[in-house]
């Protein structure tokens, strides 16, 4: 990959100006995306994949977008957040309120949810600049705890319906497409994810991305390169919140429901776990992280029941135990996350040359 980068830069465009450092997206990724987009036709029409599984897949992709957003902040810019569930909630509520109260088209609410989250994220990131490491983690943690309470606040009830939450309804597929609502939303979510991953990839490989990573690696040296750290860090916070906000908005649409208790601080932790387990500071890690958030957590419960009933363990097993064991094993065997682990495995087994 490193060698293609240099040949590309020397080959590209006007030799007098500095060419960009963007690398092309590998073909197999496009094939994967096309396959994923055809799933409703293949699996859906033949009945191989039920609507329930499309919902599960959609949720997985949604969490991938969220983990990607957190990864931009934590992985690429080195700012730890334990509170990104808050932005997820803001995105979800903006969309739910706009649909429920202002009867907006669900797709039109997405950019608004993103803008709202960018602003909230930027404004939170600005004062949080004075905080580093543990202190920043603590401040964001406070945000994660505060937001659900805020949503329950009595005087917002006309908008938020308090603890009851907001019901919205799954939209039908447009143009009379022969798809179920779940299949249609799966395609919507997939399209959003593809766009957001490409944008993230461009950010990371651009001037802005290099500035983000320079600040993470060497804050003082980054300043001496003329980088405005304060601005870069708060914009990164905003972008990160925007991603997570979009994930929240999509979650609200596919789940047809928002309530304050859907966004407890466990969600923030799950996102951070997903980012780290998937592979911090990698884009592919965000996809794996999304899988992890959606599946391991949900299936830890089923797995626990299965183990208890088949093996007849003498001890009482909790779902969280399995989750914990999986976490520990993964962190020991793949300290660079699953993406990092797979990459080094590939370097070992790939044919020489």
């Amino acid at each position, binding site marked *: 990959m490193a060698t293609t980068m*240099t040949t590309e830069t020397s080959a590209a465009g006007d030799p007098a*100006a500095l060419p960009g450092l963007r690398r092309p997206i590998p073909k197999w990724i496009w094939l994967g995306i096309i396959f994923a987009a055809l799933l409703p036709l293949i699996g859906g029409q033949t009945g191989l994949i039920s609507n329930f599984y499309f919902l599960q897949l959609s949720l997985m992709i949604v969490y991938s977008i969220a983990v990607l957003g957190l990864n931009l902040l934590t992985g690429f810019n080195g700012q730890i957040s334990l509170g990104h569930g808050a932005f997820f909630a803001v995105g979800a509520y903006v969309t739910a309120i706009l649909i429920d109260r202002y009867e907006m088209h669900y797709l039109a609410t997405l950019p608004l949810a993103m803008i709202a989250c960018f602003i909230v994220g930027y404004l939170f990131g600005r004062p949080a600049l004075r905080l580093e490491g543990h202190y920043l983690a603590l401040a964001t943690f406070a945000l994660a705890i505060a937001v659900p309470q805020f949503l329950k606040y009595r005087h917002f009830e006309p908008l938020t319906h308090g603890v009851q939450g907001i019901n919205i309804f799954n939209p039908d597929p447009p143009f009379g497409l022969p798809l179920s609502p779940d299949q249609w939303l799966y395609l919507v979510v997939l399209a959003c994810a593809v766009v957001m991953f490409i944008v993230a990839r461009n950010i990371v490989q651009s001037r802005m991305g290099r500035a983000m990573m*320079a600040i*993470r*690696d060497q804050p003082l*040296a980054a300043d*001496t*390169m003329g980088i*405005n750290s304060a601005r870069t860090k708060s914009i990164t916070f905003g972008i990160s919140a925007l991603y997570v906000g979009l994930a929240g908005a999509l979650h609200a649409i596919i789940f047809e429901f928002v309530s304050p208790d859907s966004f407890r601080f466990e969600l923030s932790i799950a996102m951070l776990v997903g980012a780290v387990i998937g592979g911090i500071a990698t884009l592919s890690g965000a996809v794996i992280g999304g899988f992890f958030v959606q599946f391991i957590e949900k299936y830890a419960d089923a797995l626990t029941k299965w183990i208890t009933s088949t093996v007849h363990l003498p001890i009482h097993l909790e779902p969280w135990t399995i989750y914990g064991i999986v976490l520990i094993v993964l962190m020991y065997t793949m300290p660079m996350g699953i993406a990092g682990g797979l990459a080094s495995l590939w370097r070992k087994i790939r044919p020489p040359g």
Partner: protein
Amino acid sequence: MSNMLEVKDLKAYYGPSQALHGISFSLSKGGITTLLGANGAGKTTTLRAICGMVRAEGSVIIDGEPVTGKATESVVRLGVGHVPEGRGTFTELSVEENLRVAAYTRRDKAAAARDLEMVFTYFPRLKERMAQQAGTLSGGEQQMLAISRALMLGPRLMLLDEPSFGLAPLIVQEIFRIMRRINEEAKVSMLLVEQNAALALELADHAYVLETGRVVMSGTSAEVRSDEQIRKSYLGY
């Protein structure tokens, strides 16, 4: 000839403790001035104070422009290339990306491309290592990268913080030779902080000796080198 850098009564603080107690010195255009002194004398702090990285009082004028109290990135944009203590390598980025970070402030991409070519004439070794992760470079190569990064800013003035630190003598000599070339060919004025006084006095035309945040001696390099006291404490012969 007017001065590239004029520092008057510069005081600097780390929290409540004062690290510089009003130092004054100047650097002529195209010249090389060195700041000598033991650990904790305030050499690094002086460079940081010039760049707005620590709280400072007093006057710092770069090529006629007062910069005291300005943010680091604004000082950098005036054409100040700071080669920081410990090299400040962006370890996870490639060599090329490190150099690109330095072109961050450049509007004129053609000039940046020319500077990249210039960097390679000084440090051909970096060209071979373009795609390599910068954290895996040797110490000497990382120092070369740090100087190159500063060059990519198109600087008029370079602040060099112990470029010899932790490097083998042969590499240090190579780097100092290249610094001399950069000074002469690219017309970059240099303020050099060094523990290796013999080497620094060879390169610089003027020297200032710092002790606990104060200038205790100054003069041309020849004057400073011939001072009995300096010879004993800093040159060791």
